[in-house]
């Protein structure tokens, strides 16, 4: 004998309630179709039955088992692991892009063109060494190149500062996510300690937080028996089952070449003493840019500036300026970095101090030397007694006359009146009979002097201009320069471009991988409105049918009552 009509009524009411629950799950899915991290929920129901002695198992309506969350946990792991690459390469690509923008190459405004104009100004000076405008132009072009060096150095340092600011912001994001994961851990454990408790929404939220954390850091996570996850990164625990372990920033002051200082931060996990170095994710990308990429470019730029200063100064010191002064530098020799490179203040103030002339040995006439013929055996030593410059006398240029009247000229030559040791500037008198010791004489001669060779001497400017084609930069392991300044600069900018290109293609790869996994996850967990609307219709029908069943049973009951 089957159950009574009242039992049938109860079957119908269970059907109604199951349909209603299913409808509200569908409603939840539809309204959260666009919620980030939401995974669709499904109502799991089964047929309830009881034992019937006469006919075997007998249906007892529908049983709602649980609301389950559709999710692929393996895929979740993969997504979290892949996010790290995206984060890292996003940061590196961003930093390289900003560095490129700083160099503005290849354009007329870049340092390359500034240096070309600078070298050409030296050529113009070599052509017109007597022209003050040409000297001024050398100084002006040097100032332009210097200010470009400063601009680049300041810009690079500014980029490092930006990375530091970004690091602080990202560390705050990490710590917020760590607390959120820990809070979700407690919620999951509490909900799931109940029999048949399912912490669907807390798990969704925690998974979203993990995926965001994975973009910031390289993380690994394991779930324990109570449903709590522990998060580790590079061997350090960041979320313990009971609490989060936030990252701390420790500030260090670093001195810069221009005398100012700069604050750099290192990371540490609270409760430990070791430095924390992320290996992947945005934090690693920021640190890579801050500690390797930007300082690398700074180092190359500094080495360029330093090569330029050293080599140009060396030549400049050997030259002669418009006033015949030698031995001065062109750049301030104490300032050899890109941030500090500067002209020597004398050069900046007075373009006449630019050493365009190479000088060299030239013949100079002496001032007539009035002296007396020394005693027999002693020589007249011009270099020692008159002027140390009086050496290297020109052959045949020595004219000795007695102070008259009558003024008589002495004859040079062995066996005649005097002989000359030209190299040392010594004169020995040999005719003491005609010209006895003590005779007043004037001595006149020409001698070789090293020095200024006139306002038309542009040979040092020419030598400096030729530094353009000399190997000055990129020293090898023995300290021998291997590249011209222009080549070194082109290498530097080219390698920034190449590295940026690599970073961009890595970013593209990791992004498309991440998109692929994202679609896979969406495919499992995402809400499809069409499906949900179909479900809506389905559950509406089943609700209507259950209601119809109840009204039928009710009519049957009425018939029974009216018997």
């Amino acid at each position: 004998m089957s159950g009574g009509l009242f039992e049938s009524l109860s079957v119908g009411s269970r059907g109604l309630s199951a349909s209603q629950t299913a409808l509200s799950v569908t409603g939840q899915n539809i309204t959260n179709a666009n919620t980030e991290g939401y995974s669709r929920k499904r109502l799991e129901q089964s047929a309830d039955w009881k034992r019937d002695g006469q006919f075997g198992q007998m249906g007892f309506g529908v049983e709602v088992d649980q609301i389950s969350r559709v999710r692929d946990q393996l895929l979740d792991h993969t997504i979290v692991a892949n996010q790290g690459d995206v984060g890292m390469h996003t940061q590196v690509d961003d930093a390289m892009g900003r560095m490129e923008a700083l160099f503005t190459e290849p354009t007329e405004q870049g340092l390359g063109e500034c240096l070309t104009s600078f070298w050409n100004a030296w050529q113009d000076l070599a052509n017109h060494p007597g022209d003050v405008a040409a000297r001024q132009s050398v100084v002006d072009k040097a100032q332009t190149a210097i200010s470009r060096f400063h601009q680049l150095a300041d810009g690079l340092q500014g980029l490092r500062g930006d990375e530091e600011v970004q690091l602080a912001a990202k560390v705050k994001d990490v710590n917020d996510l760590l607390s959120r994961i820990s809070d979700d851990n407690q919620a999951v454990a509490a909900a799931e300690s109940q029999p048949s408790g399912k912490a669907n929404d807390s798990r969704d939220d925690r998974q979203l937080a993990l995926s965001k954390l994975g973009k910031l850091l390289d993380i690994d996570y394991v779930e324990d028996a109570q449903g709590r996850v522990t998060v580790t990164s590079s061997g350090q625990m960041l979320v313990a089952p009971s609490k989060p372990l936030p990252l701390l920033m420790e500030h260090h002051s670093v001195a810069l070449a221009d005398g100012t200082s700069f604050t750099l931060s290192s990371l540490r996990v609270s409760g430990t003493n070791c430095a924390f170095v992320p290996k992947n994710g945005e934090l690693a990308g920021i640190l890579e840019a801050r500690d390797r990429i930007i300082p690398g470019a700074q180092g190359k730029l500094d080495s360029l500036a330093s090569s330029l200063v050293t080599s140009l100064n060396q030549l400049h010191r050997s030259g002669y300026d418009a006033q015949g002064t030698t031995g001065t530098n062109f750049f301030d020799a104490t300032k050899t970095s890109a941030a500090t490179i500067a002209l020597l203040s004398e050069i900046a103030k007075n373009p006449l101090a630019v050493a365009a002339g190479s000088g060299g040995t030239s013949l100079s006439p002496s001032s007539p030397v009035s002296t007396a013929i020394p005693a027999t055996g002693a020589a007249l030593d011009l270099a020692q007694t008159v002027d140390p410059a009086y050496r290297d006398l020109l052959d045949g240029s020595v004219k000795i006359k007695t102070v008259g009247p009558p003024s008589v000229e002495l004859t040079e030559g062995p066996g005649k009146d005097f002989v000359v040791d030209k190299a040392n500037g010594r004169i020995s008198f040999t005719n003491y009979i005609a010209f006895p010791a003590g005779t007043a004489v004037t001595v006149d001669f020409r001698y070789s002097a090293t020095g200024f060779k006139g306002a038309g001497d542009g040979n040092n400017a020419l030598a400096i201009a030729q530094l353009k084609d000399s190997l000055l930069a990129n020293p090898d392991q023995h300290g021998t320069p291997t590249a011209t300044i222009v080549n070194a600069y082109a290498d530097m900018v080219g390698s920034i471009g190449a590295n940026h290109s690599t970073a961009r293609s890595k970013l593209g790869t990791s992004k498309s991988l991440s998109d692929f996994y994202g679609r896979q996850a969406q495919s499992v967990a995402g809400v499809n409105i069409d499906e949900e609307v179909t479900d809506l219709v389905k559950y509406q029908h089943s609700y209507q049918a259950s209601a119809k069943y109840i009204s039928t049973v009710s009519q049957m009951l009425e018939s029974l009552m009216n018997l």
Partner: protein
Amino acid sequence: MATRITYGMTNDGIQSGLSGNFQKLDHIMNQVSSQKRILAPVDDSVGTWESLRLRSDIGSNQQYQRNVSDADGWLSVSDSALNSGNSLLLRIRDLALQAASDTYGPKERDANLLEVRQQLEQVVSMANANFNGSYIFSGTQTQIPPFTLQKNATASVAMAAGTTVPLIDQTCQDSKGNHPTAVDLLPGSLSITGLTEGKDYDVDYVAGTLTFRSTPAVTAAGTASVNFDWVRRTDLDISGDINRQVQTGQVLPINVKADQAFGKAGEDVFSAIIATMQGMHLDDSGMVRNSVDGLDRSRDTFVHAQTVVGSIQNRTEATGDGLASTGLELTKRQSTVEDVDLAQAASELSQRQQVYQASLQVAAKIIQPSLLQFL
């Protein structure tokens, strides 16, 4: 491939597709509007490297062309100066040959002397030829004229019969501030108050020395005040090289030095002319005749210097032609590396536009329908 497709997936796909297409469209639009293929080094790092090298090479090339044209100017001025010096010497030689004739009388010789003096002044100004404010025969002392005609120089000389004394120019100072010894005196310009040349004293005009004779007018221990004109060669070293770089690693000296063009001090063109003038002044046809050899030697020196200038001119001309064609090649290469190929870019642009429009149309069709519209 995912088996279940949701609206979210379609939406993300459309968004990333549209943004990707628009990025490419934007990039090519930037290329077309700036006419540059490389907008940042990331677009082509090797191209950037080459472009920076080319820009530097083009800068040098333009500078070398400028140097060559400057050298050409300098050399043309040198050439025309030497050329006019040559003609002046030819005229002086004609006058000398006339004066060497025994049929010439003192008056005609004096007339020739006057003309030779005019020609000599021309030679001095030619020797001081100037290019862009630089004396071209002064070596690196370009602000100093190599030769100066000192007029009305004075010298005080102690009178002593029979001794030969050099004349020290009291009106002039050399670079050390001393009074220079005068040589190359202009015959006919020397006078001593109260004394007569040839009677009371003799002059060696080339060497610049005075010898008193033993006459009543020459009083022992008296001082003669001598007045004369002379050609002064600067005492500074004017043998420095003026160089122009005309190519990487190629530096050409472009100046002819005074010694090369005019002869060494003491045996230069002025000494030769003055020897002629001295013959005319002393009315000595034999002396004039003997001086013609010296004039010829000076002309040879001029011609030789002109040959040197010509050979440098040939080199700069050849280099200049080479530079111009290299410059064109470099600019062409730079354009290939840096500039966008307009035809290609325009066709790519229209292709990208079509792709973008197509993706917009498809997206608009896909995102509209849902089951809801049919319920």
